[in-house]
């Protein structure tokens, strides 16, 4: 008999380590000579070093390593796809199973909070140049932190009331509690970074800055061109998740169908379930093997009683004024004769996000899909403008956004010091 878990929307789903269990886990670490986990982290968080610190009873040192390398270490500890990054690289896989690196990272950052550590300090002597970071998501925050550490005066702009971008508005709190995001952002603020929130930045305002980082993310709704998507009850994932996190009495509907196969689709389904939906299903057009989502997230969804159907793509949304059902067709050559009709009050499309039109904001070249053209080092077509995160890579993970923000910061410093672009 299956045992369906009960959980609260705002409570973190997984319990963390305490001193003892953290030490037990750290003792499993082989303390590799050339720690492949450290190579496996896009943001350079260096698990090899921080796990060794925990093992040698220096949790504070561990927190320092994490924070110095990854300004969003607390959030990344919750939402990183470890099984495809550091944990996949772990040498212990050759013996049994990898070290729970994310959970150890969470433990170390929790110690940082308990002991009110102030790991990062901006130099007292400031550089004269000022930098603007547009967007308060992971890429911008990482870029801003690096620049502030180097002594630059940084201002972060975001149209939303709260900083954090996708971390604050686009992830279910059971996976990433708001207080964890806020604690990470407090570290950025602690470096003297200024935040201007709750209004759209005007291009003219950016002229006063010596360099501009564009990290606006992807917030454009992507909804397939099928019949019925104009009906009430049809959501794009970002909008659905944001409403759930910001509206006090958000009702997801009794029957919710989520279309998609990534972590965001799972987040939407979990959100719906935890906010009281009775029947929640995820429907994905390919197989689970092909799904970009993390297997542990799918498993969590299953444990909450959420159903998952694969190889079915949406063909139309049915209803008068409001959504009443969603129709699906099978996949070519695999399940092409299959048909499915699901009753629904709500249908959420979690099939990726698109770029919004921001051509007025920054005079930079865009791709066909409307994203910013930038190098791996965050350089755009235009002097003074740099970019990173989802708006450049088309929507990847938070840890990759952190990595690109860090890279761009290096380029910005180089530009400000030598005029090199």
């Amino acid at each position: 008999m299956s045992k369906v878990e009960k959980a609260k929307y705002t409570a973190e789903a997984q319990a963390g380590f305490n001193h003892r269990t953290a030490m037990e886990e750290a003792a499993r670490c082989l303390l590799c000579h050339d720690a492949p986990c450290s190579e496996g982290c896009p943001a350079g968080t260096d698990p090899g070093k921080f796990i060794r610190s925990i093992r040698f009873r220096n949790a504070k040192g561990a927190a320092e390593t994490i924070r110095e390398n990854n300004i969003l270490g607390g959030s990344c500890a919750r939402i990183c796809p470890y099984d495809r990054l550091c944990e996949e690289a772990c040498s212990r896989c050759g013996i049994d199973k990898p070290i729970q690196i994310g959970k150890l990272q969470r433990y170390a950052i929790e110690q940082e909070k308990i002991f009110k550590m102030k790991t990062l300090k901006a130099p007292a002597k400031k550089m004269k140049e000022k930098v603007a970071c547009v967007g308060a998501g992971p890429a911008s925050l990482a870029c801003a932190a690096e620049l502030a550490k180097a002594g630059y005066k940084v201002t972060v702009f975001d149209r939303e009331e709260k900083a954090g971008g996708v971390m604050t508005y686009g992830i279910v709190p059971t996976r990433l509690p708001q207080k964890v995001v806020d604690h990470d952002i407090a570290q950025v603020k602690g470096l003297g970074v200024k935040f201007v929130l709750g209004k759209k930045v005007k291009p003219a305002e950016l002229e006063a800055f010596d360099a501009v980082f564009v990290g606006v993310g992807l917030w454009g709704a992507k909804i397939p061109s099928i019949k019925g998507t104009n009906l009430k009850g049809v959501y794009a994932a970002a909008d659905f998740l944001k409403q759930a996190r910001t509206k006090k009495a958000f009702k997801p509907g009794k029957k919710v169908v989520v279309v998609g196969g990534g972590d965001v689709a799972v987040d939407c389904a979990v959100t719906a379930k935890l906010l009281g939906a009775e029947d929640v299903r995820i429907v994905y057009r390919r197989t689970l093997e092909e799904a970009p989502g993390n297997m542990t997230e799918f498993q969590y969804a299953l444990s909450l009683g959420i159903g998952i159907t694969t190889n079915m793509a949406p063909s139309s949304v049915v209803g008068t004024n409001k959504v009443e059902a969603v129709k699906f067709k099978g996949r070519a050559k695999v399940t092409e004769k299959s048909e499915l009709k699901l009753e629904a009050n709500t249908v959420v499309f979690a099939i990726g996000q698109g770029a919004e039109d921001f051509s007025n904001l920054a005079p930079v070249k865009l791709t066909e899909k409307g994203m910013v053209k930038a190098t791996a080092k965050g350089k755009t077509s235009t002097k003074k403008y740099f970019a990173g995160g989802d708006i450049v890579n088309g929507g990847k993970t938070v840890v990759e956004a952190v990595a690109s923000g860090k890279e761009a910061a290096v380029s910005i410093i180089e530009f400000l010091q030598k005029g090199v672009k």
Partner: protein
Amino acid sequence: MAVKKDLSIKYLGVDCENPFFLSSSPVGGCYDMVAKCFETGWGGVFFKTVGIFVADECSPRFDQTNKEGLPWIGFKNMEQISDKPTEKNFEYIYKLKKDYPDKVVVASIMGSSDKEWRDLAKMADQAGADLIEGNFSCPQMTSHDMGSDVGTNVELVEAYSKAVSETTNIPFIAKMTPNCKNMEEPARAAIKGGAAAVSAINTIKSITNVDFENNTGMPVVNGKSSISGYSGAAVKPVALRFCAQVMQDPEMNKLLKANKKDFGYGHEMSGIGGIETWRDAAEFLSVGCRNVQVTTAIMQYGYRIVEDMISGMRHFMDEKGYNKLDDFIGCVLPNLIPAEELNRDFKVFPKFDNKKCVGCGRCYISCYDAAHQAIDWDEKKRRPILLEDDCVGCHLCLNVCPVQDCITTGEIKWKKGRKKVKVATKQHFD
């Protein structure tokens, strides 16, 4: 069908169902406790030490050491001898012997004067104890006339052994302290005085942990602490060493014969120190002990551990083809030789199994930082490469490798001009 092997053994003329005993400590301090341990399968008990002195204990009184999250590597105990009235303890002993005639009940006693030792011996005799053990070794007594301060004074050990032996015909065992420069001298003194055997080791004087909240040791008693006895798995190597050295002392058997205290097996040592499993027990028997005494593992896990000691010992004997404990008691003693007698003409290379290797590089780090820089690291394949010219065969790599059977015993290389002989090496590692 479970393996049946006879674990019975004669110890100082007493028939024992098996060689597993509780040592005199908090684990065997009243009737109910010992009755339960007997029901669980223990062969006998060294009842918690009885004195004329009745202990007044501090609180708390225990601490433990741990490593990498593994607790109870070692254990610290500040408890002294029994805090129950002297007569009450002998009543327990009398009743236990009456209710469990097939189990072995040893009265552990500790006096602070010749008269006290004689009085206690007399009471033990009247209570019907099978054997008497003299506690010359508790390191946390609140009086210097008792405990390890007596055990390190050979004159007192001999005198008090004599006092007991003159009072009763029950064989007397002197329990030795490891807080000494060598154990042979007090052991001989005990036998000279009339003891029939010695047991070892009692706990090692220790400071287990420092408490930085109160700037004292652990456990913290009103902001202070005291040095006291250390036991558990961490002390087993020290205990084995003392047992083997006492067993290898030829004087012991001579003195026993002279005193007519030889029961037919020479010196009958009782082994104590960090015993948790059948394997630990077998190790003590292999260095010549005829039984083992356990406390710390019981404090951590309870009496039930004896079930796997009994079953595991039987499987071990079955695997080795032994029919009785005497088939392997002392089997290690002839092979423990002085360092100067070891064959130093060769080195044994380690052998690496690249398929089992997970590429952690721990062998490489340890060989470079702590041995002879004899392992190269293939960065691409993440595998060690042995440099035979530099390897001295120390096997540090084998000891740090986290993978079962990845680094094992390899080829033997003879030093130049040395005579080749047949070499016995270890092949199987746990």
